[in-house]
């Protein structure tokens, strides 16, 4: 992975830069010692590591503004970081960059039950928001599996999803407002406790922009009342094809489950070995369908889903009778990644999305690739929305295996795009999928996205080297090639 060439002139001024940052953030908020910076050298994508030039941990929006203003004035790159749980290397530091950690922004600022909103600083964890309101029966719906650690600011940057997003939406559907700081140190507010934007939907653009447009310093989200009840079905099928057909039939019957997850044989057995959840070991595919809502509705729909599953050749079927049992159904799925970690020295988690009906095709292609690369792959899917998490099993201590796993992963993602899907469903592009962007987008598409970045960050200082495979100067992107004096096209219909 090639990152932007470090700027020697900036590195030569390191001492001066550290001193300037210390003047902005006094005390222990600036870390310049290699050993102390070590925890920041990578995020959840641990294959990539890089010590930053300096780490700065501001505590106020004014400090963030001063830091960014200083960095822009001095041509210094900035990498924002929340909790560092990105699975795509979104917070990977740069050797000549300031790592701007927002971990000290950890306070909930406002809970407004009447308007059903919470306003929090960006370092508050996803689950921290739910914890703050659960005694009144409310929760924050998007639930990425890292929710115990990942920050709400990071969720905004990555447009995080989760198991329940089929029914309740992604981050972008649940954020109402932000306070942000632009690279020139200006503090702006988008949205608030009201709905929709008065101008262009900059909040929608910012969400999922992977820290390339601005630094978020406050987030307002909508909270929902917790569903009265939830029950789950655990259904075994002979094959993933049959399970996939059942998923399509459930949705076709007008049912949007709270969660609908699928695991293949390898994942089922790894999970069963690890947590003994009572999964059917002989099943080719396992479906967990969770229905949530009013008790009457859940009981009613459970029977409908049961009938659909049986009509689609379920080989085993259990319905949770209480919370313990429902949690047991989920225990295996939630432990699927570490469970796979037990049967292989290393694994590499992918994140493509396909149109659901292409499931049999992508699975057979993956099986062929698995043979070709000589690496096993376990599959865990968010079945309702076609988001795949293939786990490629490898051993990083075997020379060449990491590279082989990465090549296998890239082939899977290319296949996802070929089948009408996309490179990433919820983990983000980051550095990991950066060089695959060309499989989904033309040069023209990517240039337009980069022009939007220029509107926010004309010098390309915020998180460069992420998302876009090639960096262009804004002046070059803005140039127009106008051929003057052309006649209106003669064959264009007029009226």
């Amino acid at each position, binding site marked *: 992975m090639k990152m932007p060439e470090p700027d020697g002139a900036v590195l030569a001024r390191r001492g001066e830069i550290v001193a300037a940052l210390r003047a902005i953030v006094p005390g222990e908020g600036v870390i310049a010692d290699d050993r102390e910076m070590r925890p920041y050298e990578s995020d959840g994508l641990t294959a990539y590591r890089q010590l930053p030039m300096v780490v700065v941990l501001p505590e106020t929006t004014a400090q963030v503004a001063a830091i960014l203003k200083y960095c822009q004035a001095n041509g210094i790159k900035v990498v924002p970081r929340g909790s560092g749980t990105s699975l795509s290397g979104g917070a990977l530091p740069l050797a000549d960059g300031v790592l701007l950690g927002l971990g000290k922004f950890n306070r909930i600022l406002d809970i*407004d*039950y009447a308007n059903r*909103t919470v306003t929090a600083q960006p370092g508050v964890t996803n689950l921290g928001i739910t914890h703050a309101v659960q005694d009144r029966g409310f929760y924050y719906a998007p639930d990425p599996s890292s929710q115990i650690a990942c920050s709400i600011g990071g969720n905004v940057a990555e447009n995080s*999803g989760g198991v329940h997003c089929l029914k309740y*939406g992604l981050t972008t559907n649940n954020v109402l407002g932000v306070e942000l700081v632009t690279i020139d140190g200006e503090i*702006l507010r988008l949205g608030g406790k*009201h*709905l*929709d934007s*008065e*101008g*262009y*939907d*900059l*909040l*929608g*653009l910012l*969400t*999922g*922009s992977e820290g390339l447009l601005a630094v978020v310093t406050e987030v307002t989200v909508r909270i929902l*009342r*917790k569903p*009265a009840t939830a029950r789950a079905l655990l259904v075994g099928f002979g094959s993933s094809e049959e399970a996939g057909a059942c998923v399509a039939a459930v*949705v076709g019957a*007008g049912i*949007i489950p709270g969660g609908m997850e699928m695991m293949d044989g390898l994942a089922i057995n790894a999970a069963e070995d690890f947590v003994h959840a009572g999964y059917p070991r002989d099943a080719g595919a396992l479906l967990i369908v969770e229905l949530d*809502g*009013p008790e009457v*509705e859940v009981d*009613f729909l459970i029977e409908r889903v049961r009938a659909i599953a049986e009509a689609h050749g379920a080989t085993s079927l259990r319905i949770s009778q209480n919370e313990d049992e429902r949690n047991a159904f989920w225990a295996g799925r939630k432990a699927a990644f570490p469970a796979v970690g037990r049967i292989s020295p290393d694994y590499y988690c992918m994140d493509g*999305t396909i*149109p*659901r*009906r292409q499931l049999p095709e992508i699975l057979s292609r993956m099986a062929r690739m698995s043979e070709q690369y000589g690496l096993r792959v376990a599959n865990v899917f968010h079945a309702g929305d*076609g988001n795949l998490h293939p786990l490629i099993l490898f051993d990083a201590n075997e020379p060449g295996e990491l590279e082989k796993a990465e090549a296998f992963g890239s082939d899977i993602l290319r296949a996802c795009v070929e089948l*009408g*899907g996309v490179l*990433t*469903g*919820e983990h983000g*592009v980051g550095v990991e999928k950066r060089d695959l962007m060309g499989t*989904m*987008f*033309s040069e*023209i*598409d990517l240039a*337009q*996205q980069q022009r939007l970045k220029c*509107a*926010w960050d004309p010098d390309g200082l915020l998180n460069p080297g992420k998302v876009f495979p090639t960096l262009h100067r804004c002046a070059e992107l803005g140039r*127009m090639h*106008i051929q*003057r*004096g052309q006649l209106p*096209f003669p*064959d*264009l*219909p*007029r*009226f």
Partner: protein
Amino acid sequence: MTTDNFRPDTGAQVQDAIAWAVSAETPLELISRGSKRDVGRPVQVAHTLDLSALSGVGLYEPEELICQAGPGTPVAEIESMLAESRQMLAFEPMDLGPLLGGEAGQGSIGGVFAANLAGPRRIKAGAARDHLLGFTAVTGRGETVKSGGRVVKNVTGYDLSKIVCGSWGTLAALTDLTFKVLPAPEVETTLVIHGLDDDAAVRLMSAALGSPHEVSSAAHLPIGIGAGDIAGPATCIRLEGFGPSVAARAEALEGELAGFGGTMGAVDGYLSRDLWRAVRDVEPLTAPLDRPVWRLSVPPMAGPSVVLAIRSAVEGVEYYYDWAGGLIWLAVPAEPDAHASIVRGAVAGTASGHATLVRADEAVRAAVPVFQPQATGLAALNARIKNSFDPLGVLNPGRMTAGG
């Protein structure tokens, strides 16, 4: 000057037309079926780019919950097609036609997204912006770009679907759209509580939305305002879904809301549907057509104080609330400034919000900012966004702001 009006049949022809506009540095007015042409600042240009021939559903996969269509496809055509599979556009786009003095059912799907429309179900299901999965469009640079995809779960690259929704054709001409569709509810019931004043109504709606009973819409019609078969003062709470679930939730909610006073009733079936269609399309304020109509988005609990501030300064105001108080539709007596400073002053008195002058004479819309004016920094950022798509200002110049 020529008076060419282009009506391309293909995306390639749209690109040709915009490429010509760029080369001639001549602006275009973008329209589709034209039902919302009178919203926004008047666009005064010599040439029209009419996208209505880019019509038709290219793909509809009920089990994948997606639909793909050309921008000129009538919304009515899409909605009736979805209804055959018991599906819907969950954001319930409003029909602006009658409010603007036109006919109902004339809008296009491109217009729905370009205007980021929504209806009473907005509070549960989101707006148009929450349902656009991907698109192809021609920018004001004369380049064809695509963004997003045809799957719900996608974070690959910037989410340009959000930025084109609500851009009123000022960034790019949409040539193809892929959007999310959802199962339609089997039944609906609306609890109607008669007799509450605005403050009590907003508190009741807040309690209903804060209950676990999955309220999908909440509106309050004050005294003198009627919608469908319902006459105000009436606070309306809609429940949708599967039959047994709706019945159980209605019963539970009736009990929980009894303490707010008023007289409880209920309507279901077509009476409920008519009510919410009327609320959605601003039917209560449509006539007389010469009154300016404002659309205010504010924090739900702030609704009554905003209305009170306006009513204490302007006589003859009519209004009602949707979105549990967060959306205020307001008709004011005709004035050259449509009482803009009073209306916007009242919104400024809340924590956050905006006011859009949805209906007014052309002269008023030319004189008064139709969309909420933004603070300097934000306005500059919006202008840079516009510039990134349309540096010469050839697409709908001046429709959203005087400068862009």
